[in-house]
């Protein structure tokens, strides 16, 4: 097709009635010929105006809704496709066997239980020792400094990192009237023996002995925040922070209890999951084995059926043959056959 020939096809091309072969040839020419493009554009615009010669009719409102619905569907499909592609690109996450980890957690749990017991025992022993120490006649009660009362001492967050065992010696001298030391009529040996017995059996100390100790020690001995101040003869006041150890121990034990609970819950959930999975797999295996058995039985029965029918047919044929051979007609036929052969 040359350029002049192409020009004659422009009208038909714009109307859309050009045959396929001619249209392909024209398209090849149009790619590089801007003059042809310009001429075709004029005819295309003219043809696009033709619908205005018709009487315009409005489509129903439903058509617009249909278009909107279709577009929403298309967008959803595209989204799902994209998601599927992204999923395909993501590497597969293999779940490792967690049984070993669970066992380790269990052993750690038992270890922590032991540790908490040990800590509780130690704290109790320390408390007993301190109480015994307080019972000496040199121990005096001193008022609690305002700095300690002002703040909540049980808050471990505010306490600096000081070793629990470290004794804090305060230089502050409290102006208090120190009365003469009074000795109480307590049998030290007996009380100490009782305490150690109690430690060994992990029992709560008897109320009588505690009451005796409490009478000597504090006015309100049950509060852990109360500090016992030991005034030495050198004039320095020794403050033993029991609350540090107590607070830390209580904090640790509370944490371990929470952790234990959490772990136990997790373990329970995992055990249930495993049990469900096992039961499911067993169920499916059972179904599959049943299907296989049924299929085998069916195949065997079909095989037997065909075999027996074939055997029966054979036998019938043989019977018929035998019947024929024994009959008179058959003899005649055989004779006849032989004669023809001869």
């Amino acid at each position, binding site marked *: 097709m040359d350029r002049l020939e192409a020009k*004659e096809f422009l*009208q*038909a091309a*714009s*109307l*859309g*009635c*050009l*045959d396929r072969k001619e249209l392909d040839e024209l*398209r090849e020419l*149009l790619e590089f010929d801007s003059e042809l*493009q*310009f001429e*075709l*554009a*004029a*005819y*295309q*615009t*003219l*043809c*696009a*105006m*033709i*619908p*205005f*010669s*018709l*009487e*315009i*009719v*409005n*489509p*129903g409102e*439903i*058509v*617009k809704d*249909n*278009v909107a619905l*279709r*577009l929403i569907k*298309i967008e959803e499909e595209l989204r799902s496709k994209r998601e599927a592609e992204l999923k395909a690109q993501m590497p597969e996450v293999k779940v490792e066997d967690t049984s070993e980890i669970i066992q380790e957690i269990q052993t750690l749990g038992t270890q922590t239980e032991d540790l908490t017991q040990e800590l509780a025992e130690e704290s109790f022993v320390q408390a007993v020792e301190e109480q015994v120490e307080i019972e000496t006649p040199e121990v005096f009660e001193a008022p609690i400094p305002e700095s300690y009362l002002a703040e909540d001492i049980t808050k471990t967050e505010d306490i600096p990192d000081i070793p629990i065992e470290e004794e804090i010696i305060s230089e502050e001298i409290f102006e208090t009237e120190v009365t003469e030391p009074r000795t109480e009529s307590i049998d030290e040996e007996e009380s100490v023996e009782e305490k150690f017995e109690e430690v060994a059996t992990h029992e709560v100390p008897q109320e009588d002995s505690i009451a005796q100790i409490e009478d000597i020690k504090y006015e309100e001995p049950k509060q852990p925040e109360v500090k016992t101040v030991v005034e030495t003869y050198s004039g320095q006041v020794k403050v033993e922070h029991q609350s540090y150890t107590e607070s830390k121990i209580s904090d640790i034990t509370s944490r371990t209890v929470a952790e234990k609970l959490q772990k136990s819950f997790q373990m329970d959930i995992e055990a249930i999951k495993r049990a469900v999975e096992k039961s499911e797999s067993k169920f499916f295996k059972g179904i599959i084995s049943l299907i296989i058995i049924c299929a085998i039985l069916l195949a065997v029965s079909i095989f037997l059926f065909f075999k027996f029918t074939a055997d029966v047919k054979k036998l019938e044929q043989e019977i018929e043959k035998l019947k024929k051979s024994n009959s008179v007609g058959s003899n005649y036929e055989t004779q006849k056959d032989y004669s023809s052969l001869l």
Partner: protein
Amino acid sequence: MNNINTSDYELLQRVLKRDSKALEALYDKYSPLLYTLIKRIVKEEKLAEDVLADVFVIIWQKTQLYNFDFKNVYSWIVLLTKNKAVDVLRRKSNAESPEYNDEYENNFIIPTIYDYNELGFEEAYSKSEQLKSAVSKLTEAQRYVIQLAFFEGLTESEIASKLKIPLPTVKSKIRVALNTLKDKMNSEES
């Protein structure tokens, strides 16, 4: 954004950026004209509605195939609609049609427009009266040939076999009819 004063070219650019409001604006503008055209070609109301929906789905999905160097959006939309409707009509009557897939749609349904002049619906509508008077001045035979080619979707050879006249005669008739229409339009404008 005010879609009424926005040109079709700008609306199509926004459709390319997946702006559904722009497509809605195009629908509101074009749907009566396109529905009339489709209904004239396929002659069934329900089918015409489906084809109209198809056309706007194509516009939504294949806007990237429009060459934005050219600004004649009106011709692109109308000729796309005409091609789609004719294809539906052909498939309805002829069972041995080529497979409708993306490649077919890109090559034979979506037109290639070469017009640098911006033409939107409003400009085209303003010329509609001129076109009507120009068409009325065509001969009966010329009008019939245009009708067979544009609304019936027949090719030149099919028109020739239908009218039982030689193919060159059909070609010349089509050429003359369109040239006459063009001249009449120009004379109406002047």
